[in-house]
Every structure is written in C-alpha cells, then in structure tokens.
C-alpha cells in the first residue's frame, strides 16, 4: 500500500459503530437473542416477525447495557428519552420501520481517550449512544440464472446499540485506535462480544478532507462494507488518497455513500449519491412510552461498572511498576488482567523490590511465551490450562535457583500442555538444577578428560575453549547444571591443571 503523502489537507473522520448487545432476549420480544448457531427462522415469534397486531415491549436489560456503555464513555444520561420510528422499505426490515432513537437518545456528549504511537493521548468526542433493533438477514441466491433471496429472521429485533462519534479523528491510525479502545471497553463491561468479523460490531465511517486551518467540514463521504479493523484502516487510507487526488485535480468531492471493495488492493466505489438518500420520516414510536431514568437508576448502573481499561492500565503501571507497553498488553482483556493479578497476588507478602521483580517476571512470561502458545493454539487465556498461581510458582522456582530460566521454558510449555503444577513437572522430568559442587565437580572432570584438545587450547590462551567446555557440561546435564557454579569450578580446575 502506498503511504499517504504529506498534503495541505487535514483528514476529518467520524465513526458510527453498531453493536449487538449480549442480552438474553431480543429488544422488543421474548425470543432468545443468541441465534448465531441456530437454523434459520428458529428464534422468531409474531412480534419479531412483524405479524399484524403485535406490539413491542422494551427489554430493560438492553437499556441497562446502553446506560452502562454510555457511562463508560463518559456520556450524559438525560432523564427523558424516547424511541422513534425510522421508516424505510426493505425486505429485511420486517415492520417497514426500525424502532430507533432520533432526537432524544438515551445518552450523549461523551468521549473516548485514544493514543497512537508517538503521540499524546487525545479525547475523541462521542456524540451519542442510543438503542435500536437489528434487521433480519437476507441471503441472495442464484440458481442457474434464477435469482431470489432468502430471509432469516433470527437476527430481527436483536438489541443494537449505535455509538456515534464526533468528527474528531484525524487519521486512519486514530480511527483504528478509537475502534480498538471502544471494543476493549465494550468487552470489559461485558455488554457485547464486539467482534467485527462475526458482525456483532459494525462500523461505518464518515470521512472528509479540508485545508489546514479551515474550520468548516468538507463534504463528507460515508464509507460502508468494512468487516474488520484492518478493512476500516485500509478503506480510510485509500479514501484519503482518492480524495486528496480529487482535490489536487481541482475537483469537488460529492457527498455520497461509498462501499469498500477488498479485492485488488482495495478501493471504495460509489453506492448512493446524496440525492438518492432516504427520507426516514422519523416520528415518535406511539407503541412505547417514553423512557425516564432517574439519578438513582443511573447511580445503580454506575455501581455495576467494573474497573475500566484506562484505569486498570494506570493502576498496573503504578502498583506493579510495569512499563506502559506491558500494562497495555496485560489490560487488553479483563481475563488477561485478572490472570496477571491472580498470578502476582502471592508476591504481596514479599518486600517491595521482590514484588516488583515478580510482577515484571510474570508480565514477561505473559506477553512473551504465554501469548505465543495461546496464539499458536488459538486459545483465549480464560480457556488455557495454566493456573495463575502455578505461573507464580514457576517464577518462584527460578528465583530459588531450582530451575534455570532456560529450563523454565520447557516447564512452562508442559504447564501449558497439561495444566500440571511446575514442581510436579520438574520432578517428573528430572529437571532440577544441579548446584551441588561435588556433583558438578565430577561432571567437570569427565568433560575435561573427554576433551583434551580444548584443555590444550585453554592453556594456549584461547578463552573460547571455556565456552565450549561449559556447553559440553550442559549437554551432559541436559542444561540442568547451575551455570555460575559450573563455570567457576571449570575455570578453577583448568587453572589447576596448568
């Protein structure tokens, strides 16, 4: 991909994110919202099929999840909110209108803090966070020229939260950072799986360019059809290049909707002009009473919020003396952070220095070998067999000199594969470090006898011979010899021979 040339244009991006909520039931009926593996049209009832005569009933859990999200995004929660009908005809919208929120959303005026590498943290405004319902899913078929579409109504009426961001983002990198942070927050508070590839986290982007110093927004292009963070980044990147070229050529950018096409390096193509845009004819939903949320309710929801990613990361840096890089990786998910804290917990009784040393060691293992093994087996940390306390135990064994750091790698792999505690693995596989001088002395004698050439080299002044002999001793002991003790005894014996 070509890099974005330095231009006289400032990029302005605002993201609209739709998130399916993890409620047990759908937004306005009693059907199960967990439809992902279900056969088509099995999670349906008269209400979500929009049969004549049915009425919606608000799912209170969805309201709670939206308020939770809004609070995590520092939004205001107005005391009065309402649902509206958004009218447009399409076969996947079974009622012919979507119950959504227009002028009085559940929340507004929040922000998300993002940071891209090498820059200061920035607050990106959140215009609003409101609640609506998902549509049915269409599958388009072509049987030997005969085209038709199938409708699966399982998704119809699943609670959908829309998070509209202010046009505060200034680059595709910032857009990606915003999405990563938003996803992390949503997963922390447990309101959504927030997985773009699975379609429960969807993103549309509004992007425009303007001359630096200009305060008015340029005409915006809405980009759709992106189904991964990578796709969002690539689509925005390609759109910046396209719009820059257009402006440089003296063309106006028409306001339109464009779709991202992944193929052939990726490009956006025009889908719909401003003139073809829908008039949604919003009006208040007469089948639902307005929503009033008092301060007591909001406080009660606030009390349910867990520690959020930013706060946790700051605490990890402060309390455990971790670097920002490590703290960031360890707070990626709540499961990771919890694992770390459980692993580090037994070190609490130790002195501050030791505690910090243990924390660093545990962090190293977690962002290193552990992540590598998890990725290789496509496992989530929550599903791994490794017990956090055992990771601590393994670090403890290294600290005590029972095993070397090198042996620990083998031990950890075994822990990962079997879930056994480190002590058991060490004794089963005979991996204890050999530190006794007598034992090591015997081994060294054997090595010196077997390698007279190396001994000769040493006395001829070749220091590398020590390395070679240590290596030979390690081979004999399968790496278990305490390296310091071994090297000390070896050199002493060599010098004595001379």
């Amino acid at each position, binding site marked *: 991909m070509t890099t974005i040339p330095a231009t006289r244009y400032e990029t302005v991006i605002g993201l609209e994110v739709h998130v399916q909520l993890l409620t047990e039931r759908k937004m306005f009926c009693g059907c199960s919202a967990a439809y992902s593996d279900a056969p088509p049209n099995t999670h349906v009832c008269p209400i979500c*099929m929009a049969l004549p*005569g049915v009425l919606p009933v*608000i799912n209170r859990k969805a309201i709670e999840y939206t308020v939770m999200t809004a609070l995590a995004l520092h939004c205001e929660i107005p005391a009065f909110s309402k649902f509206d009908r958004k*009218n447009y005809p399409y076969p996947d919208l079974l009622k012919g209108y979507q119950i959504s929120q227009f002028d009085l959303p559940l929340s507004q005026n929040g922000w998300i803090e993002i940071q891209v590498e090498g820059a200061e943290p920035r607050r990106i405004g959140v215009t609003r966070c409101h609640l609506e319902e998902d549509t049915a899913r269409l599958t388009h078929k072509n049987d030997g020229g005969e085209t038709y579409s199938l409708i699966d109504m399982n998704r119809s009426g699943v609670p959908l939260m829309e998070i509209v961001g202010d046009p505060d983002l200034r680059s595709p990198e910032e857009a990606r950072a915003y999405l990563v942070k938003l996803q992390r927050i949503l997963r922390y508070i447990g309101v959504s799986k927030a997985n773009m590839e699975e379609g429960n986290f969807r993103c549309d982007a509004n992007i425009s360019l303007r001359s630096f110093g200009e305060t008015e927004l340029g005409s915006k292009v809405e980009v759709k059809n992106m189904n991964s963070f990578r796709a969002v980044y690539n689509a925005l990147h390609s759109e910046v290049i396209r719009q820059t070229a257009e402006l440089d050529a003296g063309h106006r950018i028409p306001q339109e909707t464009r779709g991202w096409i992944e193929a052939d390096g990726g490009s956006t193509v025009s889908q719909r002009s401003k003139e073809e845009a829908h008039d949604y004819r919003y*009006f208040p939903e007469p089948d639902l009473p307005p929503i009033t949320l008092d301060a007591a309710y909001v406080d009660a929801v606030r009390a349910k919020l867990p520690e959020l990613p930013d706060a946790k990361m700051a605490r990890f840096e402060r309390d455990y003396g971790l670097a920002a890089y490590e703290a960031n990786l360890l707070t990626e998910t709540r499961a990771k952070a919890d694992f770390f804290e459980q692993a580090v917990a037994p070190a609490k009784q130790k002195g501050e220095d030791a505690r910090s040393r243990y924390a660093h060691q545990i962090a190293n293992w977690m962002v290193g070998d552990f992540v590598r093994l998890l990725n290789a087996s496509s496992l989530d940390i929550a599903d791994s067999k490794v017990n956090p306390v055992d990771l601590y135990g393994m670090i403890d064994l290294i600290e005590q000199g029972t095993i070397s750091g090198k042996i620990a790698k083998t031990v950890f792999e075994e822990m990962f594969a079997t879930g056994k505690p480190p002590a058991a693995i060490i004794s089963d596989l005979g991996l204890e470090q050999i530190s006794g001088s007598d034992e090591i002395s015997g081994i060294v004698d054997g090595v010196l006898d077997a390698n007279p050439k190396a001994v000769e080299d040493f006395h001829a002044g070749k220091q590398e011979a020590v390395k070679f002999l240590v290596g030979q001793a390690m081979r004999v002991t399968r790496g278990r010899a305490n390296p310091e003790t071994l090297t000390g005894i070896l050199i002493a014996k060599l010098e004595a021979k001379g």
Partner: protein
Amino acid sequence: MADLYYLTIEEAAGLLAKREISSRELTQAVIERIAAVEPRVRAYLAMTTERALAQADSADARIAAGERGRLLGVPVAIKDLLTTKGIATTCGSKMLQNFVPPYDATVVSRLFDAGAVMVGKTNMDEFAMGSSTENSAYHVTHNPWDLTRVPGGSSGGSAAAVAAGEAIYSLGSDTGGSIRQPAALCGVVGMKPTYGRVSRYGLVAFASSLDQVGPFTRTVRDMATVLNAICGHDASDSTSAPLDVPDFTADLEKGVKGLRIGVPKEYMPATLDAGVRARVDEALAALEAQGAIVDRDVALPSTEAALAVYYIIAPSEASANLARYDGVKYGFSYQQGEGMWDNMEKTRGCGFGAEVKRRIMIGTYALSSGYYDAYYLKAQKVRTVIRREFDAAFEKYDALVAPVTPTTAFKIGEKTADPFEMYLNDVFTLPVNIAGLPGISVPAGFVDGLPVGLQVIGKPFDEAMVLRVARGYEQTAAWGAKRPPL
C-alpha cells in the same frame, strides 16, 4: 320466551345459570338468525359456526360443572381486525385475504377464557379506515333499520350484527369514532374506553396512539359486564395502563341526581340535523328531570381543529403501521413484476383500496422532511391543546354529553364520491380519541325510523361515570329495546 337471539347478556346469563337454556341452544338460535337475515344485512366476513358450537358445548360443560360467569356461553361477534388464532383475520382488506394469525388478540383470549362463543368475524372498512363500512374490500354491510343505508363504520359489521340479532354482543375498535358512530346509526350501545384501558395486542394497528378496542351491546349494563372482562393491564401492550379496574357494574344504578353535565356548544352547531338536535335536547331534558345539573354553554374552542389534527396524526401513524404489508412475509403478494421492488410496489398498489392508499399518502407527506414541523409536530401541539380543554372542562363537569353524529344513517353510496364529506361524520367523535377519553354512544330515539345516538364523554379512566350517566339516561327511555324491522 322472547327470541333468544335478542336476549341481553344479562338475560342470557340468567337463563344459562338457571340452565333453562343451554349455550348450544342459544348459539344455535343466533346461527339460525344469521342464516335468516345475513343475506340482507351482510354483517359478517366469515362465520365460525363449527368452532362456535364446540365453544358452546365446552361452555355448557363448564356450567354443568357449576361454573358461573356473565359471558360464559354467550355468543359474540368479533371485528375482523382482532387476531384470532387459526382463523383468518382480513381487516376488510384484500391484502390480508388469506392471513391466518398464529395468536389470539389479548381481548379475544380474555373473552375466550370467560367462556365466550365466537360466531364469526365482522365486516369493516378496510384497516378501519372509513365511516360507512363501504370501504370493505369484500362487500357492503346494510343498516338493519333501513337496508338501503349504511351501518356506519368502520366497525359497521359489529354494530349491525348486534342490531340485527346476529350476535348477543360484539367487539369493535374505535380510532376516530369507529364504535360510537356505527352504534349510533344502528341503535345499539357502543363504547370506546379510555386509551390504555384495553390491551391493543392483537388489534391490527391503524393509528396506534388513537386505536382502542371496545364492545357493542344492547344495554349499558351489558356494556359494563363486557368491559369488566376485557379491561385491565396487559404486559404485552406497553401503552396499556397499569391500573386496577373497578367493577363497572357497581355504580351503574346510582342515578344522575346532582351530577354536573356539560354540553359543549361546539358539538351543537347550527348545521346539526334538526332531528338529531331534537333527540339530544330531549335526552338532556330527561337527564335534568332525573336531577342532573346540565350546563349547555361549555366551550371547547379547539374542537374545530380536531378534524385536521386527526387527519394528520392518524394517517401519519398508519403510513408506518401499514408499511409491513409488502407481500414478502404474508398476505397478498404480487409476483409477476419485474423484480423485488416492482413486486413490492404492485403488491401495495393492488392489495390496498383507494381510501387506505389515500391515507398512506397523506401520512407519508405529513412526515416528510421539510413538512414534519408544519404538519405532524403542529398537530401534536394542537392535540395537547385539545386535551387541556377537556381537562379544564372536567374540573367543572362529571361528564360531557353531545350528539354522536351530525345526521342519522345516510344512503349507501351517498358519500363515497367525496372523502371529506365522509370524514365530517366523525367530527363529534374523533376529539375524544385525540384526547384519549372514554366515550359511549347510547340509543336516544329515532328520526324518521332511523336511530340517533347520545354521546357521553368522561375523564380518563372514569368509565364508571360514563356508564352511570348513560345508564341514568337509558332508564328514562330504553330505546334499545326497540328492534329493527327485518
């Protein structure tokens, strides 16, 4: 014994309780009456005879087992706008010709639980849009008092069925007068309870903020009985009021002595039919004679705006409510077109009648970007003004009394050419929907052999007072006992 099919609910329940008749006999009598007069009246879209007899037998078994209930074993007719599980529900539209709902409306299941026997689904203006039942996609219903005239609408079938002895009582729906107006024109009691008093779940929506289910009966006492069965909160309808429901029969006989009755002068305009005015004046005199304090000079100045408000709000809501009929999921489906959009458009073009399409277009226009503030939003503001005027009146009066319709039943075909002329029929009833109030039409005599209705309007959720005043008047006249010359 009088003809069984003209019994009141009260009489029928008494005979059934004493086991002097069985529900099967009563049901059979109604079915035979239907066979005799239905070719002339055409109140029904579909008969459910077999099921009715099965329900009658089951009611008889419950009675034999010692169970008693006012509605147990009594035949009812249901407007074809209320969903009935396993029985086609067409809404008087070609669009839903073959639509068989998989669920019962809440009111229907409440009646069935009480042991009601459903004899059939009644004719109506398509999707409840009309005031004469001439907008039915199927056939015209005739007024039992004069077969050349309309029964009113949109619940014309339900009103005519009760008037003609084709049901002991019936259910209809009232969005702008669709129960009270046909009740008045057919000489039966018809009531629209307070918005939120009766569940709308299973009532196929026309205008969601105005629609309300209500009964047609032969007496006010029967009205109270049916309301007792169908009113009350329903968790499936978020707009249904979570309020306790009083026993509506409790205060019925308390009389009107000392009650303050207001008559809004806007409801007695110079253009009011002289015969109707005379009947209303007589009714007011009768109430005064019973000791009511009648004030004929009440002002509800925004009344004249009500028609405009109604014809913005109702079509706006309808334009969304009827969007689901696209031929994709159920009902009529045009499939010979050029692809999806063409089929969807032609489904709606062919499936809906002219009045429905007119209202969808009015509503779509009123909600359109650039027009919303001038129409829909303004209409909602005026709606609030109308509601406040009623609120203020109810600080001074226990109930308001007015005519139901400007005229008696008009000739079939007389007003079909001019939609606006048709809309004017509801000028005295639709303000009550706009304000969400309870209103009843009770028979108040005849003009040239055609029935006239008296409207009693009450405070929100004060159905008991409305019924008490209506009953107080009914006692002085009992016009409802008169039968049409069929």
